[in-house]
């Protein structure tokens, strides 16, 4: 049991980080950004290049990889979202799906179709905590997620830009009247969710493996987590991510490993039926 919960929290943290990325862009633009899944892949791939290809030290490689992906996020906004002639949500969402295909095609050529591996951040020998074997990397994942969530919280509540981003997502017209450059805030939110995706990719890859499309499944689950938590709600995203991770793990361990995704998704869909806006979501306002 303890083992299942530890595994669940580990993967759940990853889902949570990805879900946060989905939320930030949703709050800025109202869309689901499917390139989030590629931010995750790209994070891992960049880490691979900087750490193993160029031999940068771990911390530096981590930082540079995150920055590069954040930059890519900003570029996606600038060259795919901003020039779009239609502001319809569904069109923008499918633009991100198209960009996602394009990005994956590019990764495939740059990094090849092979699987790759990244070393753990520290020792690979497990520790025994509460009768559960825990990899140091899991501890890294949990603590980095915690740190990221705290930093994110501080960013949004303590910094000028963070507050401006929040203001923009609540009321972009009013924010513009305060002199906030709304376009830049949207671009910034893409960069930020790129960074979040990259962190998720970088920290999970050592315990899984790396390939050009590693983010797809993780990203899909991250999307599910975001919806479960109440789309657009950051606290919900974290709760949704951890819940989904633990549900999956418990489902696999206690009921059936073959049907664990069915269990997780059935619960997800059931939650939506009972509470159509997710665990912490606000109901959608009907426009009259």
């Amino acid at each position, binding site marked *: 049991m303890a083992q299942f919960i530890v595994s669940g929290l580990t993967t759940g943290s990853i889902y949570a980080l990805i879900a946060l990325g989905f939320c930030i862009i949703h709050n800025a633009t109202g869309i689901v950004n499917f390139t989030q899944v590629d931010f995750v892949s790209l994070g891992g791939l960049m880490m691979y290049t900087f750490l193993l290809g160029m031999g940068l030290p771990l911390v530096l490689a981590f930082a540079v990889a995150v920055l590069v992906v954040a930059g890519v996020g900003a570029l996606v906004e600038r060259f795919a979202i901003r020039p779009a002639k239609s502001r319809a949500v569904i069109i923008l969402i499918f633009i991100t799906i198209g960009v996602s295909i394009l990005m994956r095609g590019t990764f495939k050529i740059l990094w090849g179709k092979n699987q790759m591996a990244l070393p753990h951040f520290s020792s690979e020998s497990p520790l025994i905590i509460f009768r559960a074997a825990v990899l140091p990397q899991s501890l890294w994942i949990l603590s980095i997620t915690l740190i990221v969530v705290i930093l994110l919280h501080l960013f949004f509540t303590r910094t*000028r830009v963070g*507050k401006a981003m929040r*203001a923009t997502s*609540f*009321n972009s017209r*009013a924010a*513009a*009247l*305060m002199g906030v*450059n709304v376009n830049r805030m949207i671009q910034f939110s893409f960069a930020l969710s790129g960074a979040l995706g990259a962190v998720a990719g970088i920290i999970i890859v050592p315990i899984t493996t790396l390939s050009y499309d590693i983010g797809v499944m993780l990203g899909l689950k991250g999307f599910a987590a975001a919806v479960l938590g109440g789309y657009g709600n950051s606290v919900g995203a974290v709760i949704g991510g951890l819940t989904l991770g633990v549900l999956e793990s418990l489902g696999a361990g206690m009921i059936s490993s073959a049907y664990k995704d069915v269990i997780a998704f059935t619960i997800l869909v059931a939650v939506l039926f009972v509470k159509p806006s997710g665990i912490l979501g606000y109901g959608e306002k009907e426009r009259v």
Partner: protein
Amino acid sequence: MLRVENLEAYYRGNRALKSVSLEVRAGEIVCLIGANGAGKTTLLNCISAVHPDWSGIVSFEGRDVSRAASQARVRLGIVQVPENRQLFGPMTVEENLEMGAYLRASRMSAADLKREMEAIYDRFPPLSNRRKQLAGTLSGGEQQMVAIGRGLMANPRLLLLDEPSLGLAPLVVREIFRIIKEFKQEGRTILLVEQNALGALAISDRAYVLETGRLTLCGEASALMQDHRVRSAFLGQQVTG
């Protein structure tokens, strides 16, 4: 100070403002009155450059700012307090006020910012013990105070007030108008948009009347107050029989 010439605005492809020209001189309160749907808010949004579809010339202190983006206009000191307050509801009162100083914050010391914020609390005492409260949970009058305070934090040279009395109880309306009068004594320049025509005229120097996208009347506020045409703009032509 502010001069608007031949401004035309479009809304969903329809002309909402027709060749509007007006000016606001330094230190005066000018009010713009008119019935609902006349285009008052659209006009303010054009002046603030947040309405996308418009043409004409807006100049501020002699400079043509027609092409300037909204943040550039805020930087010049054209600050709007929008209709319906439009506070950042899930943020605290303090954060809302900080947002007002968004463009200046990077060039200001934290102490200066704090001092200015205290000045706002002094001006609006009811807010001072609600600093950490979420703006969305305040009463209508308090929200309006936050909205005005937020506007003041931007250090405006010209304050555009859009329907500050809207939806407020009569007592609170009186309080808001009192505050606007105070601004006048401080020498601030204000363009006030109001539906509450008589209340607005009473505190203004000059006024414009906007009817279905066109300016129909303008003049000294005191003169307009007596003019029956103002009355009919709001209550319709006198019905006889």
